[in-house]
Structure formats: C-alpha cells, structure tokens
C-alpha cells in the first residue's frame, strides 16, 4: 500500500455507555476509493464524523498527511485537504450555485483578511477572480453551470446533490468524504453514480471514502471495502474477498440488505 491519505489507528468512541466505535483501524491510500459499509448503527456515520471532528474520539489516532486530526479544530480539516458531503445536503439556503462554489473554496485563503477585504485591495480581487474561474470549471464538470445564478436550494434534488459534491470538490481536496451518495437516487442515476465517482478520482486526483447502505454499488465501485459491525471492523479488503468473508455474511444475515436504502 502506498502512503495513506487517511489512517484510522485504534479509534474508539463511546456515547454514554454505548460503544459506537471500538478500536477501529483502517486506511485510505492515495487516490483510492474505499467504501465503509455495515448494518444500521454499525458506526459508519460516527467514523465519518470523527474525520470531520464533529465527534471526538476517546482513544486512538486519526492521521492525515502526517497530522493527527484529533488535535485539529473542525474548521481546520478543510485546509488539510479533506472535504465532505452531507447526507442531508446542508446547502446554504441564501446562496446561489455560484456563491456556494465560491464558499466551498473558503479554505484556499488561509487568513481572514478583514482589512484587505474591507478595502477590496487588488490582492483580494485577484484571489476572487481565481476562485470564480475555478468554480466555473467545477460547475462545468458537474453540468451545473446553467444554474450558476440560481438559489441552490430551489433546484431539483438531483441537481442539489451535484452542487453538494461540487462544493466539496471545489476546494481541491486530497480526500473526499461522501456521506451516502446513493441515498434518494433511482436505479439509472445509481448506475451513473459509480461512473461519476471514478471520473472524480481521475479528474480531481483525489481519494474517496464513502459511507453507503447500497452494498451492490459499493462492491462494484470500490478498490477496497471496510465492513463495520457494532463499532468494530469485521472485514477489510478487496470487494470480492469481503463478499466471501463469513463474518460479513453473518453480520448481514437477518438484517435485510435493501437495494433502495
């Protein structure tokens, strides 16, 4: 395995008495697409939220490019090259698509620059121009530039999903976290999603970690699959290995594997 973009190293999280994550270790390599699956309540979302720093692990380390994420504030994650989407999309309701894609590049400028912004100094204008150009490229890639000046939350759901992914990618991350990208998609869109994610990796040079209920899609798409059950990693490997793993089969037995979830 090459140098990992993200590494879970014995991460444990407990809410009250409930162990949400128990000594979880796995990694995402450079430009690798990794799927995180597991039955409901297995701890997938918690693992995600650890990376975003919305949840603080009690034990373990989370390494990204040599930095331990547990000692980093939530808003500094983006600057480390980690961007995410949201299951509930969480689009900014007062923003147009254009503004959303500019907001997505917030972490590109490292300082607040209140004074230079207030005076709109040439440096600010230049930065703005660069960001607008980049936003247009990404909008073009996702075919949302015809909605450029429309309020993001007023668009059809499928377009909103694209805006959400575009907002994450526009910051040129090294790792893209996708939270249930297949949720709410119909069968055809689902088939395309895998293609889109592969194209994203090729085009944007980024690793992808996705949490997904939709097992079939994950198996087809991912280079590697990590299976969680009751907060523990029960399998980690290539899709075909994981599919044959007796522990995985057992975990999913009785729990209905739905295609529409």
């Amino acid at each position: 395995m090459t140098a990992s973009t993200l590494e879970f190293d014995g991460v444990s999280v407990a809410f009250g008495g409930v162990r949400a994550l128990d000594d979880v270790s796995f990694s995402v390599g450079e430009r690798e697409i990794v799927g995180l699956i597991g039955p409901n309540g297995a701890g997938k979302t918690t693992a995600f939220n650890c990376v975003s720093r919305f949840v603080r692990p009690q034990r373990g380390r989370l390494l990204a490019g040599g930095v331990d994420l547990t000692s980093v504030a939530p808003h500094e994650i983006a600057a480390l090259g980690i961007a995410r989407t949201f299951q509930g999309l969480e689009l900014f309701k007062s923003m147009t698509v254009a503004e959303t894609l500019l907001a997505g590049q917030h972490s590109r400028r490292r300082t607040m620059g209140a004074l230079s912004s207030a005076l709109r100094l040439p440096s600010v204008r230049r930065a703005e121009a660069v960001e607008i150009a980049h936003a247009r490229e990404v909008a073009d890639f996702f075919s949302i530039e015809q909605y450029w000046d429309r309020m993001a939350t007023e668009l059809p759901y499928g377009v909103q999903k694209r805006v959400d992914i575009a907002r994450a990618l526009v910051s040129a991350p090294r790792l893209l976290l996708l939270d249930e990208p297949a949720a709410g998609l119909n069968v055809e869109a689902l088939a395309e999603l895998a293609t889109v994610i592969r194209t994203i990796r090729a085009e944007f040079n980024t690793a992808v970690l996705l949490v997904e209920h939709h097992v079939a899609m994950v198996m087809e798409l991912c280079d590697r699959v990590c299976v969680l059950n009751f907060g523990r990693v029960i399998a980690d490997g290539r899709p075909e290995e994981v599919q044959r793993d007796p522990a995985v089969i057992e975990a999913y037995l009785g729990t209905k594997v739905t295609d529409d979830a």
Partner: protein
Amino acid sequence: MRSVLHGHPRLVGLVISALVTWLLNEVLFPTPLNGYLVVLFAYVGGVVVARLSRGDHRYAALGPLVPLVFLAQNSIGVTELTQILILAIAALGLDLITGWTGQLNLAQGIFIGLGAYVTAILASKHGWPILLTLPLAGLVAAAAGLLLGVLALRFDGVYLAVLTSAVALAGPVLLLHYKSITNGVNGIIVNQPQPPGAFADWLDTDQWGYYVTVVMAIIAVCISWNLLSGRIGRALRALRDSPIAAKGIGVDLTRYKVLAFAVGSFWAGLAGGLYAMTIGFVSADSFGLFYSIQFLTIIVVGGLSTISGAFVGAVVIYELSTNVQTIGFATTVNGVALSIPQAAVYAILLILVVIFAPKGIIGIFSDKSDWSRLTQRLRGGHNRSTDVVQAQADRPPIVRLDAPEDPHPAITSY
C-alpha cells in the same frame, strides 16, 4: 446576472437616479419634498435603473445617498435626513450581526450610546475636535462588541435574545450610575461643530453635520459591500445557513461570529458619535431597550441581509415613529373623541408589514418577491418552476446524477 460576482456598483444607474430625484425635487415640485419621499424616489429609481441594466438591485444601496447631496441646499429636511442616515448606519451594523450572521442582538442601542458618550466626553470635557472622536467612538464600541460577541458564542436563539436584552437594559443603568464620567441624568451637552473655513460661507451647522454624516454613510456602505460581497460575507451566510456545512468548508465559526459583532458594533459606535455631534446632547436613557428594538424593526422592515434594506427601513421607521398621526374618528363616546394613539398605529403598521412582506420592503423588489407571491395567491395559482425544466432542456448535462424530481425524498431526511 453574472455581474453579481464581478461586482462593480453600477455608477450610471446611481447618477441617473440622482438626477431624476433632483429633477423631481427642484423642478417639478416647487416646494421641497419631504425627505423620506425623496429617498424613496431615489431608491426606486436606483432599483429600476439597476434592473434595466440587468444589474443586481443591491447596487441600488448607494442610490439614496447620492441625491441627498443636492438636498442640503434647501435646509428643510436636513436634520431629518441626518438622523435617518445615522439610524441607517447603526442598522447596517445590526444587520451584519443579526441578518447576515443570524445572531439575535437586542443591544445595538447601547453601543450607539457608548459611541455617543465617547464623542461627547472627548469633545466636551477634553476639547477634542469632534471629527477626530468619530473613529474612536467606533473603536470603543467595537471593543465592547467584541466582548459581547465572545460572550454570545455560548448562546443561541432565544438565549442570545435574553442575554442581549439584559445588556440593553443594564447598560443605561450603569451609565447613569457612574455619574463622574457620564454626568448621570443631566447628560452631556455637545457643541455642534461649525463648518471649517472654506465651507463656512455656504453651509450652516446642520448642513455641515449632514455632509459629514453622508460621507460616513457612504464609507459604511462601501466597506460593508466589500466585506459582504466577498469571502467574509459568504462565510457569515454559510455559518448562519448551516453551521455544520460551514465548518465542513473550513469556516472558523468563532472568529467570524465575533468579527460580525465587532464590526457591527463599530458602525453603531460611529453612528453614536454622529448622534452626539448632530443632536448636541447625550443622555443615558435615550439608549434603552426600546431604542435597540427600533433597529431590529428597521432591518426587518427594510429587508434582512440587504445593505439597502437598512436605509429603506431607517426611512420608513423614522417617518413612522415621528410622523404617524393619531388616527381620529368622527364618532365620540360620552363626549370623548375615539382615536387610536400614535404608538399603536406604529405597532399595527409594523405588524402588518411583517405579515404581508416578511422579506421586508426590499423583498418586494427582489426576484422571488413577496409581491409576485401575493398576486399569485390572489389569482389562486401555485408556485410554478417551469423555468427549471426549461433550463435543463437547454443542454443535457455531461455527467448526470439526476434523481427523480422529488424535492423532499424521505430517505435523506435525518
């Protein structure tokens, strides 16, 4: 309207609107118009021109300011306009805190009071030139706002409303208590500055105060525009719209919330300095909770999160609170004339505006306006979004991620 992002105020529109207003004022009407009518004309003119030139209506923010320059020549209405602009500057600051950043602040009045006292004390007791005290008034208020902003980080929604209303209520009490600094209930009298040499021939004291206020208002609008149209404005809206996603894109919620409080209080302090300079008298009980509430009503009635909304709101609220007459009825009961008192008319109008134009007066002019919603409702129609479908038909997306066009899929709700 891609111009939003390339952002240059449409000067042509402003100049035309100024000229139209000037014509209306000087040529068509022999007697000078009421100040607020002029401002509204100028604003509408600015909006229409901005529209025609396919610009953004927010550029019209500067519209009301330009024609005012002509107005000072006939002294009528100058003091009125000065006070309106002062209200607007403070409202602009409150909008930054409450409208753009979503932090309900009921204590804006006390920061104006702080600025007013800084100017009054420095000018009256220490003989500073008043113009020099203005930035300091802003900075002192900004420092206090910074403190409140840090405190406000721990609170949200109603809790913040309670905290800030406590500040609004306790502030004047404290100011009255420390008599050695503030003169207590006697207040401080400020000598209004005379226009300096070159201007003294053709400007009186009121007009000089007015021009100083206009310049400050223009500075406030320009700086606000620069801040809000760029990265900082987007960060503030992001953290208001979705704190989670804002963190996700790297917005430091703490710093930006406190920044909004500090800058918003700076404008309040500056407005306070102008208040002391133009009113000539500062007393703590002018800056209580009622005064603070006034600024909240200004930004809501004008239109939240719009720069021009602060100005339109200031005009409307100022006129409502000073010019609304008691509504009398012809009937009498037991010889007593039946009437609705002025404050009640103000309150009822306020409630009606909010009910029928929840996005404020600016909302009536905006794309998805209340106006069109209202007429649609009257016609019994529903919101149609055919243009979305048309836009999609324009060009098929290269990469499709389309879901069924159900805007509220049950699965993704949390």
